């Protein structure tokens, strides 16, 4: 039998607002434990939450970027469960009226684009952090546990996809696209390794052609795109072998073990957990007016998918458009500066994603500090086109510009890279080479025409590479034939 995987992905995004979701404490990572805390985020008796307007604007931006509807009125709920790093023993979250709902994200795998539905994006608060001491950091055998409440109350956006994803590769593509948009919006650091963006996958399988959903398993603890893809792959294969082996799937939460490349059962969900959601009585409903929504929409940057489309409209192939759309903002700005100066989009894009990116990587340089400008790049491309520099010399010119030596023309001159295109000087060089290589001249005249390549090389050598090879070829042929 052939099986179809049905996958939904839940993403938690930690916002980088200045202050926490419901109090004035700083959102700051890496500070000494329990230094960014107050009565509210510690859950002291009598303390109350007050919502952070910037966080609500951030989730509105996230929702709009994912083509969601923003609810005109949205309500906070309490999600009740006891846990030592959850100070109030309830989390302020959202239940039936999230801030954003019904959006989508287009995801391309192997040239095929599919639309993945987004059910909702809601606002909630993060918990504190537990560190278990003794016995390898596992909770059950730990000797003691340290609690750090710096993270308690940091605003979190949870984005829940519909079960529209069908493969591990698609899961990865969805997660990557989502991350790049969130990063682009500037609302989060969106760093997987630091946990500021976290992915959980809900996976089930069903026979191809069947509409009903199978028993789902939630897989957690994937801290890279690669581990997300591998975990989903593993879990699909595991479920198929369970079902084909005649066993029943059980609804459970499984943990991805990066070392062992497998998922382990964490806990069995006996039906649904009962979080006893009810409206948070300490908060009033949020009202998102059309005016406010439009204000937020106006602040949205151009997103990668839109950029790709406009690059393709400039005539870039889809691969090049894809790479450029993911390039740092500074490079994309240079692209626009150069093409508005009249440079050919494709040449500009090739330089930026090739040599410029390689130089940045080699020098571990920050694109923001780069001395290269759009007009520089346009000038360099024009110099190659009109033969002022050869395409190989142009790479050296670029390096000089990137190293702050001035504009391309200045660099070409100071580094002595300008091509010799003065006919008189070239003729002189050609005659010199012919005089030094009588055997080659003899062979040519005897019918061995290919020896011209050797002679061009000799002229290039004599001019230290500055001669225009096309002109050299032409003059050489003239002299040999003449």
């Amino acid at each position, binding site marked *: 039998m052939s099986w179809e995987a049905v996958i939904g992905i839940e993403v938690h995004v930690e916002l980088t607002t200045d202050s926490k979701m419901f109090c004035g404490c700083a959102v700051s990572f890496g500070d000494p434990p329990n230094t960014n805390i107050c009565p509210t985020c510690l859950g002291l008796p*009598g303390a109350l939450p007050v919502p952070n307007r910037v966080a609500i604007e951030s989730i509105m931006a996230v929702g709009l970027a994912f083509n969601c509807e923003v609810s005109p009125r949205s309500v906070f709920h309490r999600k009740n469960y006891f846990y030592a790093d959850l100070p109030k023993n309830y989390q302020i979250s959202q239940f039936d009226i999230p801030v954003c709902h019904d959006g989508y994200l287009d995801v391309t795998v192997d040239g095929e684009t599919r639309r993945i539905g987004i059910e909702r994006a809601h606002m909630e608060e993060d918990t504190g952090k537990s560190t278990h001491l003794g016995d390898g950091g596992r909770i059950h055998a730990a000797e003691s546990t340290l609690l750090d409440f710096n993270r308690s109350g940091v605003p979190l956006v949870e984005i829940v996809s519909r079960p529209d994803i069908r493969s591990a590769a698609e899961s990865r593509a969805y997660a990557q696209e989502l991350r790049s948009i969130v990063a682009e919006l500037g609302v989060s650091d969106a760093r997987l390794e630091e946990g500021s963006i976290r992915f959980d996958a809900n996976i089930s399988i069903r026979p191809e052609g069947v509409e009903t959903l199978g028993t789902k398993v939630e897989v957690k603890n994937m801290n890279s795109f690669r581990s997300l893809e591998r975990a989903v792959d593993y879990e699909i294969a595991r479920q198929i072998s369970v079902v084909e082996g005649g066993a029943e799937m059980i609804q459970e939460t499984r943990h991805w073990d990066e070392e062992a490349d497998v998922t382990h059962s964490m806990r069995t969900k006996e039906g649904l957990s009962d979080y006893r959601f009810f409206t948070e009585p300490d908060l009033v409903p949020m009202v998102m007016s059309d005016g406010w929504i439009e204000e937020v929409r106006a602040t949205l940057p151009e997103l990668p998918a839109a950029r790709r489309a406009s690059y393709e409209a400039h005539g870039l192939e889809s691969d090049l458009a894809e790479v450029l759309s993911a390039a740092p903002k500074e490079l994309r700005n240079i692209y626009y500066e150069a093409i508005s100066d009249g440079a050919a989009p494709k040449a500009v894009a090739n330089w930026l994603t090739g040599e410029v990116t390689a130089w940045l990587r080699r020098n571990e340089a920050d694109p923001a500090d780069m001395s290269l400008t759009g007009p520089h790049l346009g000038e360099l491309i024009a110099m190659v086109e009109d033969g002022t520099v050869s395409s190989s010399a142009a790479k050296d010119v670029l390096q000089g510009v990137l190293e702050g030596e001035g504009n391309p023309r200045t660099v070409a001159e100071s580094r002595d890279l300008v091509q010799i295109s003065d006919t008189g000087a070239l003729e002189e060089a050609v005659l010199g080479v012919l005089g030094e290589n009588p055997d080659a001249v003899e062979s040519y005249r005897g019918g061995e025409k290919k020896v011209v390549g050797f002679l061009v090389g000799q002229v290039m050598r004599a001019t230290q590479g500055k001669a225009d090879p096309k002109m050299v070829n032409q003059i050489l042929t003239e002299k040999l034939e003449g």
Partner: protein
Amino acid sequence: MSLTDLTVAEAGAKLRDGEASSVDLLDSILDRASMTEAQVHAYLTIDREGAHEAAGKADADLADGIDRGPLHGIPIALKDNMCTRGVETTASSQILAGYVPPYDATVVQKLRDAGAVIVGKTNLDEFAMGSSTENSAYGATFNPWDIGRIPGGSSGGSAAVVAAGSAFAALGSDTGGSIRQPASLTGVVGLKPTYGTVSRYGLIAFASSLDQIGPLAKSVEDAALILEAIWGHDPLDATSFSGAYPDPGAGLDRGVGGLRIGVVEELAGEGYEEAVETGVASMVSQLSDAGAEIVEVSLPTFEIALSAYYLIAPAEASANLARFDGIRYGHRAEGATTEELMARTRGEGFGPEVIRRILLGTYALSAGYYDAFYGQAQKVRAAIQEDFARAYESVDVLVSPTSPTVAFEVGARTEDPLAMYLSDICTIPSNLSGHPGISIPIGVDGQGLPIGFQVMAPALGEEVLFQAAAEVERLAAFSDKPELAEVAS
């Protein structure tokens, strides 16, 4: 006349006339407390040092021409569920024994800004859950009018200190009648303001959508003076009202001529003591004589208000009290695992009534029961609000007894939670609607026990509420004082 018999307004006048200092007022209160506390047990903590410092400063400020208003230099007590920086705050629970908050509740800060002297913290039913102040982990409070009887609750300590003269006024909190009912049973004035007008920041929550802080005082005027000092928009409380506030003192001398007063039909009959009904009827006819138009009004949903309240309040409480787990503060029991530590801490730290309500609330919110219980209760709440709105189309204020009975005997209802819950039948509707209500003493029954008269008004209707209450106070001319034996502690 002893200083302790003065109202806030009278004591303020003496201060400004130079006849008494704030320190004199405080000393008189502390002397009085040393006599009354042995019998009444209304204070959990008396902050002598802090109070003396504040009184000294109030005197010095006044001498320097700095007058912070009507509460300047006046000793006031706080119910022990309001956080006071540096002063133990327990909500009368074992689970918070020794807990010292690092911050002041907004009302506490406002009282300090108004120059008030905070004497100490008063007893309550644990986490404000109760109607007799018997559910305290630190022992019951007794009624100054008869120490064999309860003072009402849950703000029984605050009511008792005002009645006994061991504070000029006090703050209480009212979730289902917890200010008005004890005020009624101890012969003082008790006000629950409109929900959202007094900040709840720093009030240890019982039921967030119902809790409201308000004053207990010797006069209607005092209640208005204190209200003006403590209310106002607070950016730290997201449910705080941010519009224009009424002027509670504007109509105190206006009388009730032309005022339309509705008598609530449902708050009478079976379960109401005869003396209470007679007292209330007599006041209604005096109001009529004073020029008010009296209308009988029916609010049928009042019959089911108690049931809705006992689902909504425990549901919210079950989450509000979840934070008391022994992890960060308060009592901690030993346990082999975190779950065991939490469970034991809560089992040991909470009293039986608190546990009963947490279980009730947890059950009401559980999957499969939510719609039938909590969801249904919310619908009743909305219906009560509609009933009130309909009534206020034809009347300006509503009146009723504050409590169906006078103060009952210690232990009389402790074994019967339902009988205890019925103590709040007249006061609960205003909490569910968020409207203001006030209790004014109008006389005593045959045993010399005070009877309270409740006036209710629409949201932000404090001006007309006080207008009617002031007339009730004038007509009743209630001046009896409890007689406590001269026993020193």
